């Protein structure tokens, strides 16, 4: 006989602790516990049986893994938090006594915690960190746009703005932006960094106010972690790309509102030629890239040693691909483009080929932003696809291109068309040479991966709908299919026919209308008629209505066929329904759940399709009434 088992000594009762028990064990306040949980990424768990985990009580509490809490007990941050508590007491005492000098000393030696070890612990590899920076980027971009106040010190906002600019710089430099989406919530961007898709959302440029029901402390704690995380991630990304981190900031430009342009990318080799090779050794993941860069840099330095140090790395590198090819084929130094040189297909050229097309999408073009368009959005979009862009001084300083520049091919404009009266011939000529497009064109081109025709997006035109590049769930309604008319869904065709015939009805004169209605009704009755007597009656009615027998027969056979199909279906359905009796309760519930979600998706799709048909019909009618 085994030992008697006591209740609450093993299993769920030991594996889980409630939140209050955890706080008691850690001997910290609830606020500190929350802060720790946020920083360490500890979240509550749902025990399989709440009662067993909570000593028989079913009170609503949140549970944590006991091991998580046990690890927390040794957390250096927790120690620092305790020190901070003591510090706060000392400080308040000093202030209360009016001992200003000792208060100042205390303030100078304030305990501060570091988060490096937590970053390392939560993200053991760099890939883990890159995979998880979505939320961090969203937060940093949000706080970069917030006004500073007593709760949000200006240094914090500044740091967030710096981090967001650094990220944008990196994305532009590495040409890793893939998709973008203008939504009502803001602009979604998706980049591919280290083979991980990173999606972030940037709000439109308006002053945001923190609502009263939002706990700023929680947000700031998250931001603390995210800032540290992004700092390390960017450091790694920049150094891997052979760039200096942090990129030097031109304060004058920054004060002029240059945004991203205030930072300049510096090649790491220019400043210190030592570290990059060692880094390349350390980093296995994209050692190829680094080694390539290094080789190039050394060649460059050999060729032009007299070149200025601290040269800015050119952001828009339309021929970067050819350069890369050069590196691969050293023996073949011609400046041919990658397509022609792909006669010797290597894995690298093959993988680069489709990307090179889309990432240098805007490289032949030069854009100019009209002053009502948002500069940060379109500067980022255009430059990350290789285009050059300029803007008026009202959108910020640092524009590389003047408005009068002849190289401008596209003007992104978002205002209604107005008649120009006082226009010099020079301006007119310039206007005719350039293409004026609405901002959506840029984003749609990026998502389509090719340059779309500008006509549909011309100034003051009604824009085609802007669709999400991220797609919908499987089997959802796809508006693009209806739009291009390539593959219209089967029910839609039928409905179209019906609508067509109905429209014909509308066209028919009123006198005829009644007759036609009656005869349609007769036909319909025949189709419905199941038993012979009803059929006969229907036939008589049809004769009276003046339908010839041939059409009647046709209708009848059609309906018969349909009904036969349906009867077979119904028989099978009935058998299925009966077999459901033999399902176990669990299976039955699962089945019903699945069926429910299926039906829901179907109904969503059906409503969208019906709406679309209604809209199309209405449009047709409007066109008809006009024409």
């Amino acid at each position, binding site marked *: 006989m085994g030992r008697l088992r006591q209740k609450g000594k093993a299993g769920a009762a030991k594996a889980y602790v409630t939140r209050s028990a955890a706080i008691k064990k850690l001997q910290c306040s609830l606020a500190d516990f*929350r802060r720790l949980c946020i920083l360490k*990424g500890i*979240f*509550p*768990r749902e025990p399989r049986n709440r009662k067993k985990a909570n000593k028989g009580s079913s009170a609503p509490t*949140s*549970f944590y893994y006991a091991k998580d809490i046990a690890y927390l007990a040794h957390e250096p941050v927790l120690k620092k938090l305790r020190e901070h508590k003591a510090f706060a007491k000392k400080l308040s005492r000093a202030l209360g006594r009016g001992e200003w000098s000792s208060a100042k000393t205390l303030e*100078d030696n304030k305990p*501060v915690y*570091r988060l*490096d070890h937590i970053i390392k*612990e*939560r993200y*053991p*590899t760099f890939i883990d960190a890159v*995979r998880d920076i*979505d*939320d961090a980027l*969203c*937060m940093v971009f*949000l706080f970069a746009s917030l006004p500073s106040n007593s709760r949000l010190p200006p240094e914090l906002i500044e740091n967030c703005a710096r981090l967001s600019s650094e990220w944008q710089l990196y994305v532009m430099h590495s040409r890793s932006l893939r998709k973008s989406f*203008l*939504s*009502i*919530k*803001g602009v*979604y961007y998706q980049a591919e960094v280290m083979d991980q898709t990173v*999606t972030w959302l940037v709000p*439109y440029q308006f002053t*945001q*106010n923190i609502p009263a029901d*939002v*706990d700023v402390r929680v*947000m700031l704690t*998250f931001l603390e972690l995210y800032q540290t995380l992004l700092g390390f991630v960017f450091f*790694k990304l920049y150094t891997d790309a052979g760039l200096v981190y942090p990129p030097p900031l031109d304060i004058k430009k920054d004060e002029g509102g240059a945004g991203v342009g205030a930072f300049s990318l510096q090649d790491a080799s220019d400043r210190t030629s030592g570290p990059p090779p060692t880094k390349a050794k350390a980093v296995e993941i994209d050692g190829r890239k680094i080694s390539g860069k290094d080789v190039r840099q050394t060649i460059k330095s050999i060729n032009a040693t007299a070149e200025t140090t601290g040269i800015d790395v050119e952001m828009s590198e339309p021929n970067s691909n050819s350069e890369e090819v050069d590196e691969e084929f050293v023996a073949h130094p011609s400046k041919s483009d990658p397509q022609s040189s792909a006669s010797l297909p290597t894995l690298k050229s093959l993988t680069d080929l489709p990307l090179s097309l889309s990432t240098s999408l805007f490289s032949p073009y030069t854009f100019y932003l009209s002053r009502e*368009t948002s500069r940060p959005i379109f500067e980022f979009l255009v430059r990350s696809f290789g285009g050059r862009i300029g803007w008026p001084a009202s959108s910020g300083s640092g524009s590389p291109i003047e408005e009068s520049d002849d190289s401008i091919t596209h003007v992104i404009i*978002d205002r209604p068309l107005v008649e120009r009266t006082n226009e010099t011939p020079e301006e007119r000529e310039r206007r005719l040479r350039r293409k004026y497009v*609405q901002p*959506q064109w840029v984003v749609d081109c990026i998502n389509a991966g090719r340059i779309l025709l500008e006509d549909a997006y011309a100034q003051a035109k*009604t*824009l085609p*709908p*802007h*669709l*999400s590049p*991220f797609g919908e769930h499987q089997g959802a309604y796809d508006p693009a299919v209806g739009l291009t008319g390539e593959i219209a869904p089967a029910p839609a065709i039928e409905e179209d026919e019906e609508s067509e015939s109905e429209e014909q009805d509308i066209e028919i004169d009123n006198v005829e209308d009644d007759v036609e209605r009656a005869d349609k009704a007769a036909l319909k009755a025949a189709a419905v008629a199941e*038993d*012979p*007597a009803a*059929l006969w009656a229907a036939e008589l009615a049809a004769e009276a209505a003046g339908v010839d027998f041939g059409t009647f027969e046709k209708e009848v056979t059609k309906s018969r066929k349909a009904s036969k199909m349906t009867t077979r279906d119904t028989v099978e359905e009935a058998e*299925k329904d009966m077999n*459901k*009796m*033999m399902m176990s309760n669990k299976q039955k519930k*699962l089945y019903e759940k699945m069926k429910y979600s*299926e039906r829901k998706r179907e109904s969503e799709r059906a409503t*969208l399709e019906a709406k*679309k048909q209604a*809209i199309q019909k209405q449009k047709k009618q409007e066109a008809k009434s006009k024409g």
Partner: protein
Amino acid sequence: MAVKHFAKTSNKRKQPFEDDAPPAPSLHVENLEMLSDEENDEDAASDDGHVDEFPEIDTRSDSDEEEDEDDSDDEEEEGENEAEDGSESDNSSLHVFPKAKTIVSDITGQPKRVYPEIEPDYDSDSSTEDAPNRVGNVPMHWYDDLPHVGYNIDGKKVLRPARGDELDKFLQTVEDPSSWTSAFDKTSQMDKPLTTEELDIIQRLYAGEVPDASYDPYEPMTEWFTGKGKEEIMPLSAAPEPKRRWVPSKWEKQKVMKIVRAIRQGRIIGSKPKTTSKFPVYSIWSEPSSSHPPPLPAPKPRLPTNSESYNPPEEYLPTEEERKEWEAQDVEDRERDYLPQKYSALRLVPAYDRFIKERFSRQLDLYLAPRIQRVKLNIDPSTLIPKLPSPSSLKPFPNYKSLTFTQPKGRARCISVSPDGAWVISGDEGGRVSLWEVNVGREVKSWDFGSKIGALEWCPRADVSYFVVTIEEAIHFLIPPNVPSSVFSLTEALLAPASLPPAPTTPSPVKWVSPPSSARSIDTPILTATLPPSSGLPTQVTWHRRGDYLATVSTGGTQGGVWIHQITRRHSQAPFKKVKGAVQMVLFHPLKPHFFVATQQYVRLYNLSEQKLLKTLTPGIKWISSMDVHPSGDHLIVGGYDRKLCWFDLELSDKPYKIMRYHTRAIRSLHFHPSYPLFASSSDDGAIQIFHARVYNDLMTDPLIVPLKILRGHEIRDGLGVLQVKWCSRQPWLVSGGADGTIAVCQNHSFDLWVNNSSDAYAILIHGEMIIFDPDIRGCTRKRSRSQKKTIMPSSPVQKQHGCIRETPGFNVNRKEGIAGTRSEPASLSVSSVAGSLKIVDVPVRSGLRVIHGKYNAGNFDVPITQRAGTPVDPPLN
């Protein structure tokens, strides 16, 4: 006055030491109860006297009032003194109250004490103001319902002053010039004019001044200890000043030098330069990471869909109703946290007002929400449905209603099919028992008993033919009519033998009576067993398979209402002394001497020969309604009012092998087919469910249960549907009695009927065999075909059905699957098939079909093909 003077002087004397100490009590022993305001007043007055001594104070403003006060004080003190004098003169003892007289009450006749009335102007403290109401500081609304507003000092009621109505008040305000300076007095419950002092206070308050006119806020400061001429010149101590006051400290110097030396040597550095709180970033991932697996990454937020676009396709925009519905919903209940919107240009897109809120909720999700890893099921839901053999491969089973028999007097509660399967008896709540033929549905005989039929059952013996009917604590034995004489005589010999069996040794409360042979008739029972009185109506009768024993279950009575009767011995016994719970049903085991008893929640299996309990089955049903045992005796099905059906494998367990719940209402009746692998259940939802139930002899194979067919057609009346189902013993036919008073026979044949439009020929297709009836050729031809019934096209004279109907519009055949229907009016045609024979009943006269064969008699028309009777179309499967 001497006393007062003395007090004054004493006060003066005490002043420097204790300012507000009460005067020594020894001086005031006599007027203890008078130790009140006067003393303080005296003190105040004496204080005033002191103040007067200082020449700086300007007391002119107070002087006259002081004098007034003094005057009043004097008066009071005079009165006081007088009182004191009086009391002293009365007696020297401490007698406070006036003396009481003792008089004889003229009401009670008892002596009582009467105190003299208190004179208010004498011995009273506030004699100046005659406030009659001595009610004190109590809420005056206590007196709201009373005629008085309090009591005066004598304890007499102070009556409420008359108060006019609103008009009077108004007139008073107009007439009385002083009304605007009067205020409502709570204690007297009337308006009292304000005094000039009060008016003065009001005016001062209104002007924002200090209410007390005598108070001067700008009095000059009195310098008591400071000021000119009051400086202290002499030092407090004459000790000489110590040396340390002017010699520099050695120890301080040592300490400072220590710090200076440390600074010189660089051990102490001046305060660190103010560093920014940022820490330098470095290559954190260059060192190898620990072997711990990384925590699971948080799920990424949902990516935006088309409807979130600033310029979505128009079909995504919500309609007005959708918008209203979305707005009416709670924020938590909304499926989407935004409403799709369309803007014609990007510059028109406003800021998203819930941006921060959404980021915050995402963070709350990250650190407050429990995360569970779920396996996403990516299966087709139809694969969850068990694969069972198709019902069409499990034929025969009843699949259509072939005929309906109507019980005229209410619900058809009970039915029974004769052992040969040709006859049905049915009983209803009106007390009518009908005997009718299964094939045709024609009633042959009916009995009227006048009260509700509890149960009826045929005797399972083949050599005799009789059935039992229970009515009102009596069990009647009846012989059906038209029985062959040999059978009849045997039955009669069994039920009413010439020599009665010997009476049992222990007298039974059940009386067995059969009428004398002269009084016997076909309408009356040949034998009646009467249960003891108040045992209630037997609701169930069940036969032992040999046909000698019969068990009944009554609704009331003791011993659980279970009785077992033996026909040959005319003996009844109650097998149970006491049964736990109400017995719902009993059954004999088909092979062994076992007996099933279903109580409300349990089914117990008894061995009758050994008289012991074998098993208790727990179906888990709240209230058992019915049960039946498989002909093999190893399986039992139990149905309950809570819609559950339990299948028990008796050799397996006491718990059900399978529990099914498919009826939407209570299960009423269950029956296993005696020869086919079928069972049926009926329910209050008006449906009958037919199952294929095959059991195997080897213990390893589970029984196969396949739902075959749902038969509907009974109406639901008063929440009751199908009350009983019974199988015909030799055919896969089902007889069901419903609450609507109809009894339906469901059979397994299907017809196809083809009618010629030129001649009056029929073609009838039964299971691949086509039979053509033609009145012209006076007979029928048969064609056999192995192919499917739909592909057979009869020879030229026979046409499609609907074509025929055009020719003979009065003829209406309902051609639903398997039903050769009826035309009810003016004449009716009904076709039914019995095991290869075909019957056409009630051939209409008017429609030109009347002379099919000329053998139309008694409403029963036998086509020559009936000679093939006896060969069943579907051979039994086991």
